[in-house]
């Protein structure tokens, strides 16, 4: 049998998780190997994951998984040449080989003329709100209990449930040759469900939280089940320009896509972003901020380069303000990183992982009540940019689309395809709900309200 590593050297709990102190020590050992190998700068990023997910379909658990992994990403700089290597072989021999590989890559790479150097240490706040022992200790039985609560709500409504319930613990440590020593533990939990009614209806609900105890499985199950019942036998409506109310689940996609297409300094530097400081892109009701320290998101104290997270206003009252930076894009711009770096090498540039959209003053009922004739959209499906610079995106509605007339929901409609500029949607935002939800976006925790948009371009329809 293959026996590797020095298990006696590391402290692990009964689930096999590494002690955080050892995670940082591992990063420092990797740095020492790098420096012995001639690195002029070096950075070690260690991520230790314990992730568990219980999945259900047809009102039964059909997949139920767990993983335990620890990975080290080593960035070695020789002069202006950079090499990156990663591995989950983390014994001393593995770390030595990793340093050799990263060093060899660096020495064989071209010089980066605009290399700005690894980041310097920055203040990093303790974020106790980022970690929940209840989530870290969540058992398969805890997740099964939650799933059974969702199924019970579906059974009571005469619908069938599908979904997943996940709990995860992540320890991240960053050490670099400039003196950065950063360690944090985070947890996250998400429950999502799609309910399907026998006559074609479907509904969706989800929640995300640092603490698994903050997720009300019964409420999530009831919300999706009720929506599935209310979307049975949908009727077709013509595509075209419609006023819409977008529920929070749909608004998440706006933020994720805008983050992907425009809020990154790299996108700005490559002139493929819509974002320009001072440019008006949204109505006065639209304020979007990235704040890794906001406990309402799934918070992060620092980024994957070990730089403390800064609060970055992206859009304030409809006006573009700033974008997010990592060390390299900051160096090009002659400023400091905002703490939004991803693991190296990173051709995608920095990314806002904790976006929030400010609440408005309108109740959910008033959002719908303000529609003379329009559509209420629960969420979007399979969205993709068609024209990134204009932020034109196509996608489908899914799991609950309704016709609204004279401020009241008339009934369900078949799903529609849209081809819509998300910037134009921000400009056309005429009301924002005062309630918000914490949800998981494509890349992190997002806090969003529901919104009313005066015109949304639907370009096709489907059969359900």
């Amino acid at each position, binding site marked *: 049998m293959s026996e590797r590593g020095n298990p006696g050297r590391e402290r692990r709990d009964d689930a096999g998780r590494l002690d955080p102190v050892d995670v940082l020590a591992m990063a420092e050992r990797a740095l020492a190997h790098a420096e012995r190998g001639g690195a002029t700068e070096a950075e070690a990023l260690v991520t230790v994951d314990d992730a568990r997910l219980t999945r259900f379909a047809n009102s039964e658990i059909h997949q139920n998984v767990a993983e335990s992994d620890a990975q080290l990403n080593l960035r070695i700089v020789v002069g202006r040449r950079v090499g990156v290597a990663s591995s989950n072989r983390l014994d001393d021999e593995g770390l030595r080989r990793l340093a050799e590989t990263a060093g060899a890559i660096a020495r064989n790479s071209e010089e*980066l003329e605009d290399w700005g150097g690894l980041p310097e240490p920055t203040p990093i706040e303790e974020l106790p709100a980022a970690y929940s022992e209840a989530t870290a200790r969540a058992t398969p039985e805890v997740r099964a209990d939650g*799933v059974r609560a969702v199924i019970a709500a579906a059974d009571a409504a005469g619908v069938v449930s599908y979904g997943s319930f996940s709990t995860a613990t992540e320890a991240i440590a960053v050490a670099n040759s400039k003196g950065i020593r950063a360690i944090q533990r985070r947890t996250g939990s998400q429950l999502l469900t799609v309910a399907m009614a026998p006559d074609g209806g479907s509904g969706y609900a989800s929640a995300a939280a640092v603490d698994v105890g903050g997720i009300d499985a019964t409420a999530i199950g009831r919300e999706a089940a009720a929506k599935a019942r209310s979307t049975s036998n949908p009727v077709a409506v013509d595509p075209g320009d419609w006023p819409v109310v977008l529920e929070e689940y749909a608004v998440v996609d706006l933020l994720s896509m805008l983050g992907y297409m425009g809020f990154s300094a790299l996108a700005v530097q490559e002139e493929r972003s819509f974002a320009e400081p001072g440019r008006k892109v949204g109505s006065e009701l639209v304020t979007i901020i990235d704040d890794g320290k906001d406990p309402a998101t799934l918070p992060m104290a620092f980024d994957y380069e070990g730089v403390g997270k800064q609060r970055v206003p992206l859009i304030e009252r409809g006006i573009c303000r700033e974008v997010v930076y990592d060390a390299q894009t900051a160096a090009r711009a002659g400023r400091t990183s905002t703490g939004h770096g991803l693991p190296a090498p990173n051709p995608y540039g920095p990314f806002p992982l904790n976006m929030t959209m400010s609440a408005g003053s309108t109740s959910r009922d008033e959002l719908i009540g303000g529609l003379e004739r329009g559509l209420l959209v629960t969420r979007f499906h399979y969205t993709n940019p068609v024209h990134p610079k204009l932020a034109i995106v196509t996608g489908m509605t899914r799991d609950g689309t309704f016709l609204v007339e004279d401020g009241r929901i008339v009934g369900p409609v078949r799903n529609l395809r849209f081809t819509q500029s998300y910037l134009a949607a921000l400009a056309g935002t005429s009301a924002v709900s005062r309630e918000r939800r914490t949800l998981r976006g494509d890349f992190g925790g997002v806090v969003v309200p529901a919104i009313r948009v005066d015109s949304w371009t639907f370009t096709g329809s489907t059969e359900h």
Partner: protein
Amino acid sequence: MRDLTHRALDTAAQLGATYADVRVVRRREESIAIKSGKVEGVASGESEGFGLRVLVDGAWGFASSSRLTAAEADRVAGDAVRIARASATALRNRVRLDDRPPAHGTYETPIDEDPFSVALETKIGLLLAADAAAGKPRGVSFTETRYDARREWKAFAATDGSYTEQTLTHVGAGVEANAIEGDEHQRRSYPDADGGPFKAAGFEFVRSLNLADHAEGLGEEAVALLSAPQCPAGRFTVILDPSQLYMQVHESCGHPSELDRVYGTEASYAGTSFLTTDKLADGFRYGSDLIDIVADATAPGGMGTFGWDDEGVAAASVPIVREGIFVGYLTSRETAPRIGRQSGGAMRADGWNRIPLIRMTNLNLLPKPGMSLDEIVADTDDGFYLASNRSWSIDDRRLNFQFATELAYEIKNGKKGRLFKNPTYTGITYEFWRSCDAVGDERSYVMLGTPNCGKGEPGQGASVGHACSGARFRNVQMGVGKW
């Protein structure tokens, strides 16, 4: 490695598993990214671990770890069995697997030149030359050139005595030119967008692409697209180049034929499928008589080619659509018996820490003797020729799709003419495939594919192959949205 696999299986059986399988996986990756003449990133990665799947009381459990020790095998087995018992508390139908003979043997991707043995400076030099050529024309804003290689070694063992070892090697490379003016951003790529295409092959495939020879034309086309007219809206005859047709096959043929989607087990994430099992029984007309689609895990060079799937089912070629009629699904040992069939061997896992799911292998649209792709163009009086995918989207039952390509050429009287920018087209899957009236012959049949097909929770990527030769479709809705 057999010691570890036996230990995990034995412990699982002792704890009550009626069936178990385990995969030990070592994955090695290398990537090089060039941007506008600068080496932006060179990275090497490796990951290893094992994943154990168990059936207890008719329910599944799975646990995995990166620590390859006997003690960890015992801990993971205990975890997997406990998880399965938790699954059994919300179970309505016990899992039953089809019978298959125990799997034994080895498989290795045939390669001529080991991509991990080629000197880094050789690879970088080849990419820099291509990148420089792409950026040469005046007006190019930035260029990107990319190379990726992956090797995966894996051992599979199961409580029925199966034991296989496989080594799969995939490589890919591509170059693109971007031109930006005002709000207009145009891109041209070769041979495929996002650093593709990829193949199951050695470095000889990268050399065969001749990236630098094709790159300069890309820059010229990207710049030309900035001032090209907007592609018109309306119903037109459309010819899809293989660089777009493979994505059409992927989204509107591949995913809906996954039997787990049909049974709802992906409903909460990617969705379900319009290809319900009654359509199999009824001989549903999926496309025109010209449409023959197979899921072929034996196709040379395809990223979905292997010896056995991750349930130990031997690689096979499975008909999906024959002469336009829907005849089969991508299946697993759990789903195939429900339609009275044996597994077609489509269960694939993304590394050691994920369970196998039904995934495409090489989903190929077979060529049709008769006309080459050029001859199809010559046979077309009026229409558009669309190439290189830029955007894709399809609904949760895989019916309403919309694609954008990098460019369109107008076809008039059998000849390609004016260049148009921002082409889009949309339709309903079966209506679109029924409108196909020409499929290219062997001369343009090429193996393409995507290395990052997403599915499942937690998310998994899959490398899938698609061979096709180009095809013509009538009365297609083009020009969607406001620009």
